């Protein structure tokens, strides 16, 4: 898989630090599963965390902490979390918990104009949303701006916009000042995994009317 669009380095830094909200962390994790270069990049960023841990001042632990630890070594480990085996070839491991039966088996909602969406359930603590967007081959997503940080990962098909062509594994890492109009390429529907922290802001009057229906 040739991935040519990667997350911004600051997004990977936030992932390494562990401060991304679940939807963003999941999109990055799924990209990492598809992109060796970014896995190597993450290994490098983790060294910053290692160096900070090595350099942080010490905080005394309670006297019985070591005994408590040693007393637990023979405990049977809690059951290993079941690692979902993805069914669909285009469902990388981190996404499998959300789409165990594959992308096509999800409860898609048609939004008209060749567009369908599927909201994926996340932890109630999450402050942003995780969703899938499916755009019919050759169809355009109405031009829109972004109300906040948005990550879009291509899982199937491809699209083009003014930033270039995005194929499977590519990620678009957009800040709020970006406006674009992605057009899915011919031949295959384009499915993207998206994390957003605000509603998209559609520019056209028609789309403003449709926005409540589209729900993105």
């Amino acid at each position, binding site marked *: 898989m040739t991935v040519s669009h990667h997350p*911004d380095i600051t997004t990977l830094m936030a992932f390494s630090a562990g401060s991304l909200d679940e939807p963003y962390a999941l999109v990055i994790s799924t990209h990492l599963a598809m992109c060796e270069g970014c896995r190597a990049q993450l290994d490098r960023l983790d060294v910053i965390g290692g160096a900070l841990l090595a350099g942080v001042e*010490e905080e005394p632990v309670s006297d019985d902490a*070591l005994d408590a630890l040693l007393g637990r070594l023979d405990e049977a480990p809690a059951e290993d979390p079941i690692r979902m085996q993805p069914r669909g070839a285009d469902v990388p491991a981190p996404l499998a918990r959300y789409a165990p039966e594959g992308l096509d088996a999800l409860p898609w909602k048609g939004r008209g104009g060749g567009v369908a969406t599927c909201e994926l359930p996340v932890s109630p603590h999450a402050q942003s949303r995780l969703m899938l967007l499916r755009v019919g081959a050759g169809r355009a997503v109405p031009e829109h701006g972004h109300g906040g940080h948005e990550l879009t990962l291509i899982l199937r098909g491809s699209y083009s916009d003014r930033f270039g062509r995005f194929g499977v594994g590519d990620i678009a890492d957009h800040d709020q000042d970006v406006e674009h109009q992605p057009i899915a390429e011919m031949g295959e529907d384009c499915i993207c995994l998206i994390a957003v922290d605000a509603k998209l802001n559609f520019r056209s009057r028609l789309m403003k009317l449709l926005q409540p229906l589209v729900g993105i």
Partner: protein
Amino acid sequence: MYAVDMSDTTSKPVPEAKSIADPADLLARIAESKDRKALAELFRQLAPRLKSMMLKLGADGALAEDLVQETLLAVWRKAHLYSPDRGAAVTWIFTIARNLRIDQLRRLSNKPYEDLEGIETTDDTPNGLQRIEQQEIISRVKTALGDLPKDQQEVIRLSFLSDMTHSDIAERLDIPLGTVKSRLRLAYGRLRPLLEDLQ
């Protein structure tokens, strides 16, 4: 007042007494023979730092101690998965602590980090560095962090040693989000030559 002590990384390196065992060796002893003394030694070296880190990351005292215990328990169980070729022991332990903290503090219903653990880089060729060099990289990065301009150091430390998102940091420092990101990029640009040594 910031929840960050800017002096951390500028403190003088602890003199490496002969008696301080290399964490990578301790992990190897745990992996090979379930050596409890090795784990106890690792605890003495790292538990106070792990606790400090957990406190900065938003855990209260009791939870911080729980997380330290869980981290070292995971280290005990997963020691065989550590490979000194891929990085310093302290970096590996940092990632374990981070993933546990995310589970417990951010309470994600799903586990995006754990699901990634099973995926190995196919280009998993050892980088050829000796263990001692991995330790050396950590100490060079520690020094380099301390040498960063204060404004860059501040965003790096808030980023890794607080539970703040970049937006939270922007708000806290009363600077635009773009400035937080550009400082992080500048800091990364300075650290990068040291981190690239890994490849």
